[in-house]
């Protein structure tokens, strides 16, 4: 039976083999040693398109999705509204079935949209240049550290303990082959100032901090930036792009590199990927920036056009001397961010950010009033906050699940000093009813457990 993805018929194949000058297709594989040719491969049987759609439905129906369940889980991946323009446009076949714009004349669509994306990331972060993206927030942070190490010729990287635990883990993996020391997160309870007091010196290549941090706290980092710069180190800020609809851009408080997880800009939460690594910096670091850059130029008739530029930094030209081994970017995710930011625009993004802010503060105040629960309302936060709980978070979340609520992130493993602590994220997707239901459910967890005890 012919396969729908392969147009050649038996007659086509016969004619082609004849033109090639062989008797059979097997002859074309004669350079593969017979002892390893045509092994038995144990795969399931082929499925027709109808059977495939049944199989896909079977798998998806086993998953508790965020449409039928209220989600208060964030911790680096956020449930935000995606306007219909975004899926409609990124699923245009001209975008998603194209490749890297190697031939710029017939890739202007991809090139111009990435140029627009780069511009919007600059506007959002206040930085002078943004690349065409990295894999995700974690790898963007690692590439930021590599830029700083190469620029300063120093070998110490300081990370704040409230940088996302997976970003810190990724950074360590990326730098394991380099002679680099990564410090600052030995004690998960240490404050940023304590970390700087202990480690910052003239051997420091960079300091990486998240704002808001992994525990949701927003801080004024101007004084820290000055301290870091006084030692000749670079200041790398990992930012949550939706928060930049409301808060001061990191450039204004002294960031040299801004990285971040761009998923929240129009990309579905999708079990962790594909996401979008935001990377923005100053023009003085352009030659040390990894990844693709799109630049504006003109054609032979003087018309504006766009090309991949400054490619002499990259692996396909520099090989072992390249700034990074990165080849692709997350072009389609960057396009989603570009369409998202165009659709919401200046007032819409501010509105989304304010909705997150107000709803999160409403939730935090209500939860803080529950007996046994506590939120430190003196700490400034955007849309995510730590709740100290009367019971282990895993138990609470299991109870919430029965009420179609996906509870917050359990901090017990990475931040044990906080005790039974849950990180709750609230976005514009959470209605007042959902927040009230969460508060009621949390209250009931307590009473239910109390009775049992």
């Amino acid at each position, binding site marked *: 039976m012919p396969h729908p*993805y392969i147009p050649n018929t038996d007659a086509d194949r016969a004619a082609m083999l004849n*033109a*090639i*000058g062989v008797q059979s*297709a097997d002859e074309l*594989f004669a350079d*593969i040693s017979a002892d390893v040719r*045509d092994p038995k491969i144990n*795969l*399931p*049987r*082929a*499925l027709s398109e109808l059977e495939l759609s049944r199989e896909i439905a079977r*798998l*998806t129906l086993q*998953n508790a999705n965020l449409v039928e369940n209220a989600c208060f*889980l964030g*911790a*680096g*991946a956020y449930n935000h509204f995606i306007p219909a323009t975004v899926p409609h*446009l990124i699923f*245009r*076949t001209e*975008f998603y079935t194209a490749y890297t714009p*190697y*031939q710029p*004349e*017939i890739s202007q*669509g991809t090139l111009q949209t990435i140029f627009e994306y780069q*511009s919007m990331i600059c506007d959002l972060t206040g930085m002078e240049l943004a690349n065409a993206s990295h894999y995700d927030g*974690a790898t963007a942070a690692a590439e930021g550290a590599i830029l700083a190490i190469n620029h300063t010729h120093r070998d110490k990287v300081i990370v704040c303990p409230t940088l996302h635990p997976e970003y810190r883990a990724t950074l360590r*993996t990326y730098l*394991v*082959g380099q*002679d680099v020391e990564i410090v600052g997160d030995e004690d998960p309870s240490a404050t940023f100032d304590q970390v700087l007091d202990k480690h910052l010196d003239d051997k420091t290549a960079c300091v990486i901090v998240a704002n808001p941090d992994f525990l949701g706290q927003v801080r004024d980092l101007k004084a820290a930036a000055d301290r870091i710069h006084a030692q000749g180190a670079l200041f790398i800020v990992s930012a949550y792009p939706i928060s930049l609809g*409301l808060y*001061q851009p990191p450039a204004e408080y002294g960031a040299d590199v801004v990285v971040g997880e761009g998923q929240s800009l129009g990309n*579905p939460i*999708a*079990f*962790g*990927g594909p*996401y979008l690594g935001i990377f923005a910096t100053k023009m003085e670091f352009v030659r040390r920036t990894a990844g693709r850059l799109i*630049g504006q*130029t003109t054609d032979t008739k003087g*018309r504006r*056009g766009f090309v991949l530029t400054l490619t*002499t930094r*990259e692996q396909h030209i*520099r*090989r072992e001397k*390249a700034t990074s081994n990165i080849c692709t970017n997350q*072009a389609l995710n960057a396009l989603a961010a570009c369409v998202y930011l165009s*659709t*919401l*625009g200046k*007032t819409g993004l501010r509105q989304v950010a304010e909705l997150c802010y*107000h709803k999160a*503060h409403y939730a935090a105040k209500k939860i803080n009033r529950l007996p046994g629960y506590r939120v430190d309302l003196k700490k400034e936060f955007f849309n995510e906050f730590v709740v100290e709980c009367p019971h282990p978070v895993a138990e609470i979340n299991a109870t919430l699940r029965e009420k179609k609520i996906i509870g917050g992130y359990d901090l017990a493993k990475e931040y044990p000093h906080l005790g039974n602590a849950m990180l709750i994220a609230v976005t*514009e997707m959470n209605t007042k009813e959902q927040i009230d239901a969460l508060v009621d459910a949390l209250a009931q967890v307590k009473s239910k457990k109390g009775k049992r005890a």
Partner: protein
Amino acid sequence: MSIVSNKTEPLIYELSSPGRIGAALPDCDVPKTELPKSARAELKLPEVSEVDVVRHFTRLSQKNYCVDLGIYPLGSCTMKYNPKINEEAVKLRGFAQIHPYQDADGTQGALEMMYALQTMLGEISGLPGVTLQPAAGAQGELTGILVIRAYHLARKDAKRKKVLVPDSAHGTNPATSSMSGYAVVNIKTDARGNIDLDELRKLADDATVCLMLTNPNTLGLFEENVQAACQIVHDAGGLVYGDGANLNAIVGVARPGDYGIDVLHSNLHKTFSVPHGGGGPGAGPVMVRDFLAPFLPGPIVVKARPERSRRKGKRYAFAMPKKSVGRVKSFYGNFLALVRAYVYIRAFGKEHLREIAENAVINANYLLARLRDTYSAPYGFRRCKHEFVLTGTPFKEKYGVNTLDIAKRIQDYGYYPPTVYFPLTVPECLMIEPTETQSKESLDEFADALIKIAEEARTNPQLLHDAPHDAPVTRLDEVKAAREPVLRYKH
């Protein structure tokens, strides 16, 4: 080309008009809290209506060539057709709307798919240890080299510092090696297009971390001595890293694990039909031999322990391999790319898998047969695999037409040009990979166009120098773009 494609499209910023918005948002339904003191003063994003957004990006889309328009013969990129059911699968809420930190009892369908994909990739490659985490081929390479590094260090063999890389390799191979802290030693290609075994014998020693081998290589040739090459490296105590960029040529026909490869990455966006998205996202899972599996990045999906599954209804769970090199990114990999690859492999199954490679190789050899008398094929004395290289040197010498001119002229015929000037070892190189999803008719049309262009090079070289003539823009000034970089819109 479309009726709007030759008009210059303004930047979205230039379409902005104060007061417009592209999506309505709900009013705030909770009591408001005072806004922070550090709120930003201004945000310079465009202000456009929904229809402005849709028209702008639709018009831009029409300035792109894409696989769904026709042959996209970029060598080593495997621009095959992207089946539409894959795209329907990733839109479903049970895949697109699940949080990576949800309790595993609410994501068993996702974990089951990942476990099955791990198993199938292990089976197809002959390498049973699998991590799905790497986000792209280059990240798969980094993962693989770090796994090999961890293996050597675990055996207390710290003196190994050099990675052997054939001169025809992708640039990511040497870049990955130096990123991992290793020195790169290049190995020549011999006259038949294989890795030079004598040189390999000389260079493989107790300082060798591994050989990075792309097979079939970027000349489109299967390494005739691959088993001997792997043996030489193994005898020296090193391992062999297989760059699976060209796996499409042999999928179902031969398994890298069977001929001596220890570690392999596979670009799911090449062999397994994940769309290229204008440059990403892809996915680059890594497969390894059993003894290397403990070093893989995680978490990976495992079958849940029976006592746990009885208690919580969990059949699958995440686990970190015992001696893992750590994470290479956040979360578990480019999940939606994994979904597409899973659906694709299930669509072929054991009955049809081999047809992918078989037709890819027939198509490439047929195209080579159609073009070899017109263009010079430096390795045309051998059968190619999924792709082949041509050189434009004769056109340059005789008519002053270089490969870039040929590539630009191909655009006028309504096709994407092949990869050009790569591999670096072939001067004026054109590297052509048709894939199995082209019909004979479409290959004939493409070959006819290339033959006609060769004739134009002889009779009217200026036509090629000035090409493209029908694209949305003519040739762009890349020197100016690099010399005076404009990387963003200036307000």
